């Protein structure tokens, strides 16, 4: 899933100041699962904004709603009527959701309530960690199923580097050296010979370095 983190309240308060009718809009998939912007966080945040407005003497109304995914036009269009009377939306979706709202509602102010962080896994309730960088060219078959692009601080393809100490990365004792993990796992699988294959220089164009990415499936599109 895409993980998100709600912005600090101080930042949200500042960006939502001055709007007389604000819609706090939750996104019930990745953002909800990140505890950043599902219905529960919408309630909490809307309540806090109302109180902040009251304290600062601002007259205004704060509405609450949530849709399944803000990255789908059909869901987004379902709030068109509700949005008609609002002058701004605080979107609790990832950057993709915020931008789709901006595209669908060109005359409205759309504000981001969350920071989009990474593609990751849930380690346990309340703990997520990055696993995928979305580089567009998966090499996990060659790296024992562990990604050096997402998990090596230097994104080395032929690691480890000299900063690997006791299985940890030199940037922090809390960060595992993914190359150490790769070697350990290949040893366990009895496939250490795979390390002899040298990765050539990576082509980063599928990773977005060749410009914004777009995917078209001719067999599906209308």
């Amino acid at each position, binding site marked *: 899933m895409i993980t998100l983190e709600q912005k600090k309240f101080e930042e949200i308060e500042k960006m939502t100041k001055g709007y007389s009718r604000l819609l706090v809009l939750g996104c019930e998939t990745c953002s*909800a699962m990140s505890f950043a912007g*599902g219905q*529960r*966080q919408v309630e909490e945040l809307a309540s806090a904004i*109302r109180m902040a407005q009251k304290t600062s003497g601002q007259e205004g109304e704060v509405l609450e709603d949530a849709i399944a995914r803000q990255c789908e036009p059909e869901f987004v269009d379902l709030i068109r009527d509700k949005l008609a009377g609002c002058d701004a939306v605080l979107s609790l979706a990832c950057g993709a959701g915020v931008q789709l709202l901006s595209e669908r509602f060109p005359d409205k102010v759309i504000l981001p309530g969350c920071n989009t962080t990474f593609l990751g896994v849930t380690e346990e309730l309340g703990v997520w960690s990055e696993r995928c960088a979305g580089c567009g060219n998966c090499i996990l078959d060659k790296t024992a199923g562990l990604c050096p692009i997402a998990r090596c601080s230097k994104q080395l393809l032929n690691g480890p580097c000299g900063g690997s100490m006791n299985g940890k990365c030199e940037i922090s004792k809390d960060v595992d050296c993914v190359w150490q993990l790769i070697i350990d796992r290949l040893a366990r699988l009895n496939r250490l010979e795979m390390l002899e294959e040298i990765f050539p220089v990576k082509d980063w164009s599928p990773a977005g370095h060749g410009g914004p990415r777009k995917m078209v499936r001719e067999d599906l599109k209308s």
Partner: protein
Amino acid sequence: MSDTSPINPMAHPPCKLACPILTDVREYVQLIAERRFDEAFATIRRQNPLPRVCGRICTHPCETACKRGQIEEPIAIAALKRFASDGPWKNQYKPVLPDKPSGHKVAVIGSGPAGLAAAHDLALLGHHVTIFEALPVLGGMLRVGVPEYRLPKNVLDEEIQAIVDLGIEIKTGVRIGAQIKLSDLFEQGYKAVFVAIGAHKDRKLGIAGEDQFEGVISAVSFLRAVNQGQNPKETKKAAVIGGGNTAIDSARCLLRMGAESVHIVYRRSRDEMPAAQEEIEEAIHEGVQIAYLTSPLKILGEDGKVSALKCIKNELGEPDASGRRSPKPVPGTEFTLDVDMVIAAIGQAPDSSLVADELGLTERRERIIVEGPYTLVTTRPGVFAGGDAVTGPATVVEAISAGKRAALSIDHYLKGESIPAIEPAKDVEKVSLARSVVEKTRKFPRCKKISLPADQRLRGFKEVESVFSEDLATKEALRCLHCYLGARIDAEKCVSCLTCVRVCPLGIPTTSKMGEITIDPFACQACGVCALECPVRAIDISLDPRTEIAQDIKKAMSTSQHSGPVIVGFFDLHGNFDSSDVENLRQDYPHVLPVMVFGLRRIDTSDILKAFECGADGVLLARCPPESDPFPEATDRVKRRMAHARALVEALGLDGGRLEICDMPEQGLVQKELIDGLIQRIKEPGQVRSE
């Protein structure tokens, strides 16, 4: 009144399904836990016109079915019923009679629990009821069968009076069938008759000497005499033959009347004894001796009076028709008990001979035949029958059930409608909890009932059991595990985030490969952690839904008339406080508006903000003492959430000191110093909190 809709076993708790009148046990137990005693009583009384009787002598099948029984011991439901029904708030309940009487006259024959329940419900349906009672007193077996020490007469009097006060006409000393025939009643303008004559005829022992000597008496006659304040015979050493509740009642009465030794002679072993276990225990505790596996052979006498009982020992053979192993005498084990009195308590039968020419009877010509156990229609149009007269001796709540069903059938009959045979709850199989759930559930011992010491009991007929104190009653009610009041998932909202699976302290939610979450509604104990943590609000708890908590906050705020700082106080119902503590808080601190919850687990940051948003100047959260908390493992989660709430409150520019989280004291709702400190911080922000 009875519910006529079919029962769906999946939606009702086992306590309710086990009760013949489908009492809403869970509801009134919950109301007791919430210290809403008057409402608890109203809940009981709406369904049961004899709650104080049942609170004392019901055999409580609800307790046998109770889910708590799978953890350690069932909830003391009968004792809770008595608590709710004995308190002063009972007088606030007023049954509502219909504005317009139906104009129909109905005769009820017999004033036992079946007759009284039928009369009560018929009166509430607008019919004019006359009760015909053969004895000079009302109450049937409740009056002349159950001893004073189990059911005080003044309690019975009050319950009967409340029923009579519905406008019921009483004719005592009238034996239907002898003085007046059933057909005469119809001629007198009665449109329907309910025959509930009970089972007052003793069975004979059928042994030598039974009719020969003075001092042999049937249990029914004995108990009837004792219950009317007479002593049928002075006795020093007595034997009671039989193993049912009547035998136990007789034996315990004999001890109270000065008998030096009382032996119960029972032909099978204790396991087969039909009397209630707790009655047997009490009898033994008081000094009754029980000769198990013993049959009487012959009553011996001297000078025309009983002098001894000759007995023989038995061994148990093959199971008989009743499923109990049948006793077989062991040759050569005869012995005699020196006694001057023998009470025969081997069962009763209805005395149906008086109605034999007008109603169809069973083959042994004892019981009245009814078309079905739910319509109670007899062989004669307009005549219905129920209670012991139809079933043979049974329990008080079964008799009440028959009376209620009869009232419904008669009402349909009088309106010219067909009489629906209400589908009984299918014999619901006892659902077993998973072992992991049993192990993870915190044990709380059942509150012990308070009984008179044995030596004080035997000096008279004073009631043996006392009513629970408010403290004990609430504590006991809080043991309820809230079957089917737990988590409900709204499948449309659920996004399969697995939070519920991860946070449940009992491990109850499960997921399919495709993320479909299932929460077993029977096993769930309504702790509410999942409902609170669910990021999309797809789960709610029926026990106290989130919407209700929000309403409670608004309601509490709307009652605020105080000009000083207003504080919303969330109090855990599991604390050791009683209704006077709540009252004192209201008087001492009108600032503090209490919202009662089944655990602070239920309060989210948004609820705290909501309170501030509604105008509260401070919020107080009082945790129950750890020893009372059914889910202590959630405490850390609660604390961390409160830290988050405080951080948010401070980000809003408010003093974090306006939010106080504390433990409840050993007794009471909250320590005064804590409230004073909170008020002080609200008045003078920026002070350091004491925590």
